[in-house]
């Protein structure tokens, strides 16, 4: 080991250096390679520059692609783009860019036009976010913006700088903001939110009409979707619609105004949230039974936010909106039927939602306390699950992954590969490892068993840790490593999150849980 | 032999007469001048004794006449002591207002006084004293009625106006030519001191002194009766001083056009236009209702105001003496690139009717010489003598000079 350290460390450093620098033949020098972890910036506003006057990209950071710059110019909002005329108007916007990065921007009024014409000056701060960074924030632009604001990276410049500097953004975000969903349970209510989610999924473009709280509603929509699907939902919370800005979700106060023509298209769906929101939505609004929207509504109604959050925390690469119905079915099937749903939702002063978890009910030894960042996997003990439920869950899971596999057929196999109806191994495979592919139901079963066990162990169940110690080497031996890598990474991430939650602050809140999480990490690393 | 005394006396008389005759024959004018000066001295001495504390006034009267005499230059070929000639000259130049000043009227004969008064009556109309509402109040006027509450809502204000005379017509090219030919551009005393360096720039298209549109010191042929345009505010003010008048204030101008009539202590009738409350494009030269250019001041007679003043609306904008944007005449604060003077009345190219009403105020830089901006003059009633009285009364002690006249008299 010391020998390896002597060789490995310099090799690692060289590798890191090489990935950081590239050789510029034109300048015959090494220059820093654009880091995938840096967030580039741009400002789109009206100003006078040497090049010209009016709305333009007034300042940019140097690392933005030419194609992305073009996109920013096209999407950039100009004069009179905000739906609200007040000085406190703001719009949060999110859309993809040509390079694969995403633009998260904030549009605000910033005083009067330099040219002396009436109307507010519109100022848009754009963050060009690499996909990897956005994923760290669970593909939640609101969470990313919040972190950027907290870091001081978002501000309106009195004097526009000649050039902006890219910055790195620390932090991460949970898959689901439980406190936000908890607020939305109260207003507008589970059924409304479920209907909104379902309508958004089934529409090319959806216009959300709400006088107030559009930002919160759209944030709730994003939180109610699986992480992998969120990037498909570009949105704007307060810009006037325009064909140049084809947002998928558009928040407006009403349909009046000079931009109503943009909404009179056959592919635009209008969802109006008004009136007495505590009542059940109209007949044409409630989400269809078995759909993702109805699942969301049910989860909110029955206060299973923690379970929902834990489920969404699972990585599901390749998941698309078309698969959400199948995923919903899987969730339904996994949901414990015997567990009595806890009615009523209490909110604490910190606006977190307290949801007593079935794990806490079943296992009083764990002192898991409800808080808004926990991702407790709320699953009942599979040993006590009725057989019919088990078979139903397996069937739903198989159907889901079949759909995912079909959609991702040209791509590399995922560790939780979709199942096919065939039960035999690939007839052309020669080696046992090839015989055991993602198409094999035994693999799926093993992985499911591993899932359950790992999460139980992390949740603090003593017997689960012991059984995991036995199962893990067996799984390693039977299943190819590449099928396991992503799962392992996810398990480790979850364990680290739990550990961090336990030790945050001045005191360790739950030492037993923290130790257990660490033990799981060590076990997974050993493999 | 002794010469008899009687013969000696007759000889002396005869010699004196001969000398006088010779002197008179050689220096006729000199003799006349001596007589005039002697007579003036006698009168001055007499009035110095009889005036109660008014020494300076009488002295000023004489010097005023002299300064007036000085002002009559090249054309008059003058004898500055020819009062009658001076008066005739001034009447021909339209400077009757100067003649009717308290300080000068005493020098007029009854016939001259009557002629000056007739000229005043013919050229100017009386605007009686009273209150007038100012501000963007057109929308507040319902059937011409305006009460104080509505006035306050529209940021208007009430201004009291003293009685005055206002020109019935805008100043014409012909009238302005008198000023140009009379050397008005060279008399620095009638110009604001801070504008003296710029007076050299007030030239026409050929470089001669005169309005911007003129050539060689004269207007286009056939435009003599057109309002003079292409003059700055300073030129307008100088002309007004030269003729013994001044520019009207905004309140005076509006009062002349809208002719307010009080209904009660808190309400009044006030017209949007001189002829009434509705725009009638046949009564004024605006965009679309005229030939698209300035017309003679005698045209559009139907647009006359109640007081007999013509073309207050349309044809040319008119300078007033008020600063633009002063006070709360308009909603919101104006941020002016440079001080501006008020314009009233609209012009032949004014596009919107609501910008050609009595209450609409525009503004322009005082040095601007625009193609559609002219002016008319005013004189306060208290500055004139309108009835022939004794010299003593004419120069009574209660004479309070108007500010403009004080400067003129001092010059």
């Amino acid at each position, binding site marked *: 080991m010391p020998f390896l350290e002597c060789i490995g460390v310099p090799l690692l450093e060289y590798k890191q250096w090489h990935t950081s620098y590239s050789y510029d033949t034109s300048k015959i020098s090494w220059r820093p390679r654009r880091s995938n972890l840096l967030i580039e910036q741009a400002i789109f506003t009206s100003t006078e520059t040497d090049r010209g*006057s009016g709305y333009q990209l007034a300042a940019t950071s140097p690392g933005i692609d030419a194609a992305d*710059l073009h996109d920013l110019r096209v999407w950039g909002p100009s004069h009179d783009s905000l739906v609200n005329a007040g000085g406190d108007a703001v719009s949060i916007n999110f859309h993809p860019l040509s390079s694969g990065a995403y633009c998260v921007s904030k549009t605000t009024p910033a005083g009067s036009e330099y*040219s*002396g*014409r009436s109307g507010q000056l519109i100022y848009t701060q754009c963050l060009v976010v690499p996909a990897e960074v956005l994923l760290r924030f669970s593909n939640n632009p609101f969470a990313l913006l919040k972190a950027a604001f907290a870091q001081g990276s978002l501000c309106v410049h009195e004097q526009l700088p000649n050039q902006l500097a890219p910055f790195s953004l620390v932090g991460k975000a949970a898959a689901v903001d439980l406190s936000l969903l908890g607020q939305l349970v109260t207003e507008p209510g589970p059924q409304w939110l479920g209907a909104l989610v379902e309508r958004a999924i089934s529409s090319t473009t959806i216009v959300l009409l709400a006088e107030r709280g559009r930002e919160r509603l759209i944030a709730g929509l994003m939180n109610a979707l699986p992480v992998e699907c969120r990037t498909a939902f570009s949105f704007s919370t307060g810009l006037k619609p325009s*064909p140049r800005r084809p947002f998928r979700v558009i928040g407006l106060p009403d349909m009046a105004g000079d931009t109503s023509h943009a909404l009179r298209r056959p592919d635009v769906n209008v969802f109006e949230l008004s009136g007495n929101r505590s009542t059940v939505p109209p007949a044409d609004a409630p989400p269809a039974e078995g759909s993702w929207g109805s699942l969301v509504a049910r989860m909110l109604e029955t206060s299973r936010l923690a379970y929902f959050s834990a489920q969404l925390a699972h990585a599901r690469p390749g998941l698309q909106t078309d698969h959400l119905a199948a995923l919903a079915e899987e969730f339904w099937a996994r949901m414990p039927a015997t567990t009595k749903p806890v009615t009523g939702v209490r909110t604490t002063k910190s606006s977190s939602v307290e949801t007593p978890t079935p794990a806490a009910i079943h296992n009083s030894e764990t002192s898991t306390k409800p808080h808004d960042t926990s991702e407790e996997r709320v699953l009942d003990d599979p040993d006590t699950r009725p057989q019919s439920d088990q078979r139903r869950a397996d069937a739903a899971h198989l159907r889901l992954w079949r759909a995912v596999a079909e959609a991702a057929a040209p791509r590399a196999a995922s560790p939780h590969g979709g199942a096919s109806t065939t039960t035999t191994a690939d007839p052309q495979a020669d080696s046992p490892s090839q015989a055991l592919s993602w198409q094999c139901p035994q693999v799926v079963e093993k992985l499911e068993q591993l899932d359950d066990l790992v999460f139980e162990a992390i949740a603090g169940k003593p017997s689960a840790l012991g059984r995991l110690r036995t199962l893990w080497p067996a799984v390693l031996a039977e299943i190819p490593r590449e099928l396991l890598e992503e799962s392992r990474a996810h398990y480790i991430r979850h364990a680290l999150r739990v550990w961090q939650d336990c030790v945050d602050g001045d005191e360790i809140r739950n030492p037993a849980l923290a130790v257990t999480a660490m033990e799981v990490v060590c076990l997974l690393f050993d493999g | 032999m002794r010469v008899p005394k009687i013969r000696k006396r007759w000889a002396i008389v005869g010699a004196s007469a001969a000398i006088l005759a010779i002197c008179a024959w050689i220096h006729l004018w000199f003799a006349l001048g001596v007589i005039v000066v002697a007579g003036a001295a006698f009168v001055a001495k007499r009035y110095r004794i009889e005036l109660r504390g008014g020494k300076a006034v009488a002295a000023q009267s004489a010097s005023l006449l002299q300064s007036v005499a000085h002002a009559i230059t090249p054309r008059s070929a003058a004898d500055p002591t020819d009062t009658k000639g001076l008066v005739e000259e001034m009447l021909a130049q339209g400077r009757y207002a100067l003649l009717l000043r308290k300080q000068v009227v005493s020098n007029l004969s009854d016939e001259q006084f009557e002629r000056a008064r007739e000229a005043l009556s013919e050229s100017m109309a009386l605007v009686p004293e009273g209150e007038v509402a100012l501000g963007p109040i057109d929308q507040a006027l319902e059937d011409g009625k305006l009460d104080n509450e509505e006035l306050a809502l529209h940021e208007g204000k009430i201004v009291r106006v003293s009685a005055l005379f206002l020109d019935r017509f805008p100043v014409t090219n012909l009238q302005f030519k008198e000023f140009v030919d009379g050397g008005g551009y060279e008399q620095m005393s009638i110009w604001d001191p801070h504008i003296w360096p710029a007076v050299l720039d007030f030239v026409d298209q050929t470089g001669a002194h005169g309005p911007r549109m003129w050539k060689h010191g004269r207007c286009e042929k056939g435009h003599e009766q057109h309002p003079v345009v292409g003059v700055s505010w300073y030129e307008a003010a100088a002309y007004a001083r030269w003729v013994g008048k001044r520019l009207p204030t905004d309140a005076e101008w509006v009062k002349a056009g809208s002719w307010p009539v009080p209904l009660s202590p808190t309400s009044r009738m006030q017209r949007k236009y001189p002829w009434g409350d509705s725009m009638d494009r046949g009564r004024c030269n605006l965009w*679309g209702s005229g030939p698209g250019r300035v017309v003679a001041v005698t045209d559009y007679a139907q647009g006359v105001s109640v007081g007999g003043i013509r073309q207050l609306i349309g044809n040319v904008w008119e300078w007033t003496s008020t600063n633009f944007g002063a006070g709360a005449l308009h909603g919101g604060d104006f941020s002016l690139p440079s001080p501006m003077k008020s314009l009233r009345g609209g012009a032949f190219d004014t596009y919107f009717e609501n910008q050609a009403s009595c209450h609409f105020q*525009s503004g322009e830089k005082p040095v601007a010489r625009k193609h559609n901006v002219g002016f008319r003059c005013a004189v306060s009633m208290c500055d004139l003598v309108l009835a022939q009285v004794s010299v003593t009364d004419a120069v009574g002690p209660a004479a309070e000079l108007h500010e403009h006249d004080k400067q003129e008299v001092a010059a």
Partner: protein
Amino acid sequence: MIKEGSVQLDSYRLAQYSVQVPCYICEGGNSFDAELCRHCFAPMALAHQANSQKIAPRIIAAIGASGVGKTVYLGMLMDILSRQSDRLQMLARGAFSITLQQITASALARNEFPHKTPNEPDRWNWVHSQVRSPAHRRPVDLIMPDLAGEALLEEIDHPHTYPVIRSLLSKCAGVLMLVDTVKLQSGIHDQDYFAMKLLTYLIELDNHPKHGWSQRPVGLVFSKADECEECFDDPVAYAKAHSAGLWQHCNEQFKRFQFFAAGVAGGCAYRNLPEGRVRVPLRIEPRGIIEPFEWLIDELRE
């Protein structure tokens, strides 16, 4: 036996959907009921109206930098021509063609300038009108958009940012280019450079020696000339004195061009309103509005 009857075909509506309607500006295909072209966002009403006429309307444009007065000029022009009939008369085709005139006239009557034109092409005002002249028997059909100056600049500097501009200017029969006299007078030559950039862009769009931009009429209008009387006296002399580069450029590149002076506001000032310092007109007295347009129409007839 032959039977006759009439059967209503519902499928004709489906057939309409299958036939693409080309946009009049960019010629991109759109469904028959599209309100805006999905490629360039120009109103499809132009295509429908043009298809219903025997003579295709010609396109002209008022171009210039941001804030030079394109909206005010076009709106005022339409309002003036709609009120008079002795020289030229303009009749709007389609209700959408009145919008620009309405917005401009309403704002100016309130002693305000109209709002800044947004960059988004779907928010531009388009005018389709027929221009009649007593001297000519046949009227001229025209399409004129009110463009945003920033969009012009962006398209020149970064092509394909606003595809509608490229398509429009390629098809224009002539242009009126507005230049801000106030800025020229104060010695700021950005207007000069922008105008030259724009003219060069036009030449590059179509440099055919017979029907390219060098042969099309270009009217150069000194806007806001009410603040500079000498500009009205002799626009050509003014151009030579204050924008020599532009004048030289036109001489070398264009066969048919003319300088004009125009103004709408008699004087301007700034007003301090809650939203900030706003420039307002003190009175409206249009001058030189019709002459450039008249010249352009005459040139187009030739």
